[in-house]
């Protein structure tokens, strides 16, 4: 009977990268006892959230006979009896809104597997919130950053995702015991051998390293762009979508100097968000550490030369204008 690992995010913790890499290396992984199921053409397994969530981008016909429940039955029938470890990955399982997975129901559906482990990667809240907004900025309309931040502070939610990872723990506990839940810290696993991919290969007990896998080409929409360049591009283009080359034009102008990190936050916003979540992160650690004594939520690591949003000044705007003039002249 197969073991099953269900990777449920969080969003913006290299989930897409992981999914594309595993999808590209199915054959190699299978030869080493790790089964990464292929469901239709999808590189990940969001479709399996169908019984509980209206999954974006999945037309009803893709579920096949019996709809989402039929798909689940076929999935379990095809995989529970295999030898090895089945790895499913879909960050949609950790959503708070709209639609939320019934973890008790999920646990029952996975019962035929020999063992089930749910894995969730936490990320320190300022980086998490910023990444969520930057992802949304790729497709207008995106809320203005200030309003997005304010709502996150007031409600604890950003684009339907909990900022307090303890809420995800609570959700999972509705279906799974603590010793079947593994929390990872994004900043920690990125620094380890093989990064996020290496961490998951070790978690799955696969005798492969990250370097053994064929790398997946980067997906354009997930390339990290300078936060303030994205913010400025959004403000310039709104209410229209950002033109494809605008962010690249702004970045090429190097308005903030070479390699200087920037932030959507003001320093005050960043500190307030960090302070609001510090006790919540400590509470989560207290719940996870009985099973994982080394688990900790990494605090934000702010580079000393970071440019905060309210530090934008004429020097930066001049370089942006220069870059735009050059673009105009092309």
């Amino acid at each position, binding site marked *: 009977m197969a073991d099953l690992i269900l990777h449920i995010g969080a969003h913006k913790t290299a989930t897409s990268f992981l999914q594309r890499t595993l999808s590209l290396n199915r054959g190699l992984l299978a030869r080493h006892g790790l089964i990464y199921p292929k469901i239709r053409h999808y590189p990940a397994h969001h479709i399996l959230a169908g019984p509980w969530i209206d999954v974006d981008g999945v037309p009803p016909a893709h579920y096949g006979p019996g709809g989402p429940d039929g798909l689940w039955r076929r999935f379990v029938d095809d995989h529970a009896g295999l030898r090895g470890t089945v790895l499913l990955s879909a960050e949609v399982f950790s959503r708070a809104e709209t639609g939320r997975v019934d973890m008790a129901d999920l646990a029952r559906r996975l019962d035929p597997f020999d063992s089930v482990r749910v894995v969730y990667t936490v990320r320190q809240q300022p980086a998490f919130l910023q990444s969520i907004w930057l992802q949304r900025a790729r497709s207008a309309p995106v809320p203005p950053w200030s309003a997005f931040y304010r709502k996150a502070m007031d409600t604890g939610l950003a684009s339907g995702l909990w900022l307090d990872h303890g809420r995800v723990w609570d959700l999972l506990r509705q279906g799974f015991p603590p010793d079947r839940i593994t929390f990872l810290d994004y900043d920690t696993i990125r620094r380890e051998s093989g990064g996020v991919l290496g961490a998951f290969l070790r978690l799955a007990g696969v005798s492969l390293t990250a370097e053994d896998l064929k790398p997946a080409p980067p997906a354009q929409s997930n390339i990290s762009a300078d936060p303030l360049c994205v913010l*400025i591009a959004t403000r*310039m283009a709104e209410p229209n979508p950002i033109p494809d080359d605008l962010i690249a034009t702004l970045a090429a102008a190097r308005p903030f100097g070479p390699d200087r990190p920037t932030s959507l936050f003001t320093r005050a916003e960043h500190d307030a968000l960090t302070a609001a979540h510090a006790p919540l992160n400590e509470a989560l650690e207290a719940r996870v550490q009985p099973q994982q004594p080394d688990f900790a939520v990494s605090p934000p690591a702010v580079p000393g030369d970071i440019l905060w949003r309210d530090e934008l000044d*004429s020097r930066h*705007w001049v370089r942006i*204008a*220069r870059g735009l003039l050059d*673009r*105009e002249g092309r």
Partner: protein
Amino acid sequence: MSRIVLHVGTHKTATTHIQDLFFRNSDLLAKHGIVYPEIGLNRGHHGLLGKWVDLPAPYGLPQADAAMAWDAIVGEHAVSDRTVFLSSEEFSRLHGRIVDMAALAATVAPFDDVTVLCTLRNQAGFVQSVYQQIADDRAPMEWDAFLDRAMQAQHVDGLTLNYLRLHDHFLSGFAPDQIRFLSYEVASAGPGGIVGAILRELGAPIGADALEPFADGRSNVSVAPVATLAATLIAAPKRADRALMQRVDDHVRQVFGGERTSLFSAGEVSALDAKYSPLNRRLEARLAPRQPDFRVAPVSVAPATVLRDRMDEAFWLPFCRDLAGFA
């Protein structure tokens, strides 16, 4: 009694405007006993400096020609009841092409009355105006470096900001009672503006309104200062062309309406004031016996002026939207 008035500047105190206007109205002025001679190819008298220093074409005259021009001026007017008015701001340059004041004084000594007339502008207005002129002519250095030079070296583009030192330079050739200063700001605000003030210094029986305007009436008009700065910075290291200057200027006027703008930040104005006001007060004390009412205007930008600090996102974002084609 013959008189010669040497209008020696400074730069950026409407000297070109005065020269253009007097050139245009030389016949009218002559009827009132004021001689504004035609020298070389210019409407100003820069060519006369050729007797002592080289000026680039088209301003300069070969030394022999300049000497001849001086001989003609002295020969024709030193024994007369006329007032000769000669104007070139290059006479007041303290760095680079420096005119020997003793030699100049000796040249004009045959006149019964000699006046060196110099208009002074508060150093903040002067620095800003010089920077704008340079931006019009060529790619200027970065504003920060330009201002730093103004503070440390006490001159910009070879033009002194230390008016006490300028007075010393004039005194190296002329007697104290031969030197008169005007305040640019006071003169500009008075009847007939700076031209009216000059005419009164010349004892002219006519006012500025009697003069025919030259061309469209303004000889050297700049775009709004923050537009100069913004366009210069955007184009750097190349020179900002006129089209860019105009584009930015249009935007500045859209954002700030009719408000005056300034290159300075509030902190920079304060620093200039701290540096130069004490020197200005010392000059005024020196001049008090002969010009008790003379004051150099406060080192400041005009009231209700938009300082550079307001070139924030509200200014830049719409401009960038326009550049990106979203306006």
